[in-house]
């Protein structure tokens, strides 16, 4: 066989070459599986589900291999159709992309079990469609993470949006109205992205990120470039559900099917935030985004943090409260980007990972509570800690993480963000972090109090929550702790890269 004839060191080189060649498979595996799922599901739904799960598992291992290779040997580039950029489309995975890719793959795999559990009541082709859309969503999000071409990013943004509209609409009756509102606002966002890209294309003539980064400094002075950036950022702000533009998120999170929620809640906003990071720090870095533009972005983010926290206070339904809390937490990420120094950006990227884990743990635990009592409001979960001690503990760990209690992971991303803000002596932003954590304490402890301190009303119907829903919550809670303790290993990989790659000092 080819491999054993080659001495060991070469096999490493060969393996690296193989992974370098197989990198786009991170998107192609779920894509191909999605295309085959409806056909397979018509024959036998069980086989289709194993096929989908297997594809996501393989995809997760590949993403781990790719990210380790990137962290070991530097960015990987892949030219589609044999055409080098800027002629053809290019996939490029740098250190930060190598962090996001396994994150997307992991969450796709993790909530695939609980998402597909929902299909039992549906006809086979209905189920096949649900699984195909779920795989398309993970392919779309992975496509956004690894692409190096701005228009290709739009295409995969649209794939993930369309599949999210459908996944949200698959929930209860009111979900269809929420999905329609999400469709309208989401298509505004995607069209803003294309429109902003149009401006930049008109000025630079290219769609490739690296090439545009070279050609932007010459034209950054003109108003059109700033307008392009403004439209792109506005589009992504809608996708990230930043305050004033977050209208669609609470309904979408509340009425979406619980199975898919850990995936949607964790990753959707983060991938858009990552796209913003690529635009701000890959494309616009050399051109130096206008100082006051970033400053304005910072104030929008701060407003979003405060508004999200305050709005979350007033909610009885936990899903809606978690949606508003996501509005606040994504504000942390944007604030980290707009502060701009290496610590703040590291904090923002780390917070993307941490918040993805914590928020999806909350939703997974909530899914288990809902499976048990059928209700998802604060009174509905009263006294559940006695019957479901492990899930309640998982929810508490995630909640304490979001508040920022050491040694959980939320604390460390907040540490970097505040460290960055102090270094840039942006004192109002430091105050914003503090206030929002306190507000977070209030609305999370209200739930913890209800879980542990109030007695359950015996009348409510009680089913046994299936293991496939509880397991993700426990696994994620463990991850929250592990990410906290080993946050240095996660950070160690992309701080030098950001600082090294001429990023913000």
């Amino acid at each position, binding site marked *: 066989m080819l491999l054993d004839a080659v001495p060991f060191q070469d096999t490493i080189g060969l393996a690296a070459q193989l992974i370098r060649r197989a990198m786009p498979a991170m998107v192609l595996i779920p894509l191909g599986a999605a295309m085959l799922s409806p056909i397979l599901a018509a024959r036998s739904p069980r086989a289709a589900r194993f096929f989908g799960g297997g594809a996501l598992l393989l995809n997760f291992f590949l993403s781990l291999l790719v990210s380790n290779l990137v962290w070991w040997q530097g960015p990987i580039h892949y030219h589609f159709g044999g055409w080098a950029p800027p002629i053809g489309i290019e996939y490029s995975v740098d250190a930060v992309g190598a962090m996001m890719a396994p994150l997307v793959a992991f969450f796709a795999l993790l909530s695939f079990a609980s998402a597909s559990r929902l299909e039992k009541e549906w006809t086979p082709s209905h189920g096949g469609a649900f699984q195909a859309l779920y795989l398309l969503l993970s392919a779309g999000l992975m496509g956004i993470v690894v692409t190096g071409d701005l228009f290709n990013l739009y295409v995969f943004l649209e794939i993930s949006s369309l599949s999210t509209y459908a996944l949200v609409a698959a929930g209860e009756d009111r979900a269809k109205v929420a999905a329609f509102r999400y469709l309208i606002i989401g298509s505004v966002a995607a069209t803003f992205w294309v429109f902003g890209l149009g401006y930049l294309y008109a000025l630079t003539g290219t769609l490739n990120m690296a090439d545009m980064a070279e050609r932007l400094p010459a034209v950054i002075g003109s108003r059109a470039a700033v307008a392009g950036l403004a439209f792109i950022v506005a589009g992504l702000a809608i996708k990230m559900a930043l305050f004033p533009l977050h209208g669609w998120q609470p309904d979408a999170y509340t009425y979406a099917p619980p199975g898919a929620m850990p995936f949607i809640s964790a990753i959707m906003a983060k991938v858009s935030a990552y796209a913003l990071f690529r635009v701000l720090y890959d494309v616009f870095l050399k051109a130096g985004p206008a100082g006051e533009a970033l400053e304005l972005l910072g104030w929008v983010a701060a407003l979003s943090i405060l508004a999200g926290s305050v709005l979350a206070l007033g909610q009885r339904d936990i899903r809606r409260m978690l949606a508003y809390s996501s509005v606040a937490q994504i504000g942390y990420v944007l604030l980290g980007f707009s502060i701009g120094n290496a610590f703040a950006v590291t904090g923002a990227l780390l917070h993307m990972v941490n918040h993805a884990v914590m928020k999806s743990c909350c939703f997974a635990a909530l899914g288990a509570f809902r499976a048990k009592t059928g209700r998802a409001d604060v009174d509905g979960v009263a006294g559940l800690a006695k019957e479901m001690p492990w899930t309640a503990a998982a929810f508490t760990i995630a909640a*304490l993480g979001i*508040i*920022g*209690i*050491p*040694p959980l992971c939320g*604390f*460390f991303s*907040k*540490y*970097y963000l*505040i*460290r960055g803000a*102090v*270094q840039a002596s942006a004192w109002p932003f*430091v105050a914003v*972090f*503090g*206030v929002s*954590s*306190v507000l977070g*304490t209030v609305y999370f*402890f209200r739930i913890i*109090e209800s879980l*542990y*301190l109030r007695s359950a009303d015996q009348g409510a119907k009680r089913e046994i929550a299936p293991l496939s829903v509880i397991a993700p919550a426990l696994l994620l809670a463990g991850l929250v702790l592990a990410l906290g*303790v*080993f*946050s*240095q290993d996660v*950070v160690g990989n992309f*701080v030098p890269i950001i600082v090294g790659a001429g990023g913000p000092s």
Partner: protein
Amino acid sequence: MNDTRPLWAVLVSLAAVGPILLSDKRPNLREAWSFIAAALKFGFVVSLLPAVLAGGTPECKLLDLAPGIALHLRADPAGMVFALLASTLWIVTTLYSIGYMRGGKSPHQTAYFASFAVCVSSAIGIAFAANPLTFLLFFELLTVATYPLVVHNRSEEAVRGGRKYLAYTFIAAQCLLVAVVWSTFLVPGATFQAGGFLAASGATPAQLRILLLLFMIGIGVKAAIMPLHGWLPAAMVAPTPVSALLHAVAVVKAGAFGCVRVLVFIFGPSLLREIGMDWLIASVAAATIVGGSLRALGEDNLKRRLAYSTVSQLSYIVLGAALGSPAAIAGAIFHIAAHGFMKITLFFCAGSIYTRTHYTEIAQLAGLGKRMPITMGAFTLAALGLAGTPLLAGFVSKWNLALGAIHSGNEVFVAILVLSAFLNFAYFFPIVYTAFFEGDKGETVRFDETHVAVWLPPALTAVAALALGMFPDFFWSFYTLAWTAAKAATGLG
């Protein structure tokens, strides 16, 4: 160089939490686990004593928490005092709470013992933390671990007390986080140094003042300094062993120790005097001392009176650390231990009175001295100690504090100390008087003590307070530890 004993001291009780939770159904096994953990922890801490007394600082660095900042545990003299106090009193409190809980048949005992173990391990972590970030990590862990204890008996009043506790401590936690981040920004990778590490930070005095303010708010809530003390009386609704833990063993003591760390080991006496904040903090502490005592006078509930007495006693420590002269710092560090022993005795007595007679108001205690001589005897001994009468631990620390006040040139605080002695006497003597001299004289009263596990701990701690008064270096050599830390902090070397 990597001496892992401090790490084991912290981890042993964390490790005990698992077995405690698992042996929920078998109380004896659960108590056994607590005892084993307490004994092991005490053993580890005492094993560090000779090395520290010989001037060494056994330390160990674990994984990095942030770039350039490791999870760094180091046993220095001041840390040793707090660690010894916490581990010793944990054994005594475990014994006491077995008796108290068994007697009182209170529910949720497993949650109590588990969070108690986490509290003590974070207290030891705070004692041995070598850099501000590690200190913050254990400080917030303590905050979270104490919440289940404050809301222990799940009553509406307890939940409200818990909410108040959360409001105070989490706002403080944010201020402390910002302060720690700012200090690591000013002096990257700094560890606690006797005499403070901020002197070379190059920050302007105005910035340093704000930084100090943030630190004091962050830690002051736990140290129950006057404007920030609101949560402590509200937390009195918890059962007595919890109050004992809150007051004497871990929580509030961690706050006071935190103030010592900030004032002596981050800012340092010379820097404090330079930015003119030493008299400000000292006067706030003095105000708390007097204010706390006055509030204690007004309280009729025994435990609430003891709570306000803690508020005022803790500010002795803050006062000593703020004054900055060697004697004051030594007195402050010694008072951490002295107040621990005395106050825990008072709470144990209050608990044993409650289990036996369900009296909570001071007026009800008439004639109790004859029925419960040992409990009331210990109570009187500890009360006198707190008032600062010679031959008791309180006197040693008060004497050094007064000496320090004179050395540092602010004589007015000596007057404060004397005034507080009278106030202490004013709010403790009525209790002692009603217990021994009032009540119906005539009928013969038989000896009516509670279960041995309830009256033995207060007796032990009262005797320990007496012993500490007479021989300040009794067993744990608190006095020498306090003075070594004080000399190092003020450069007398």
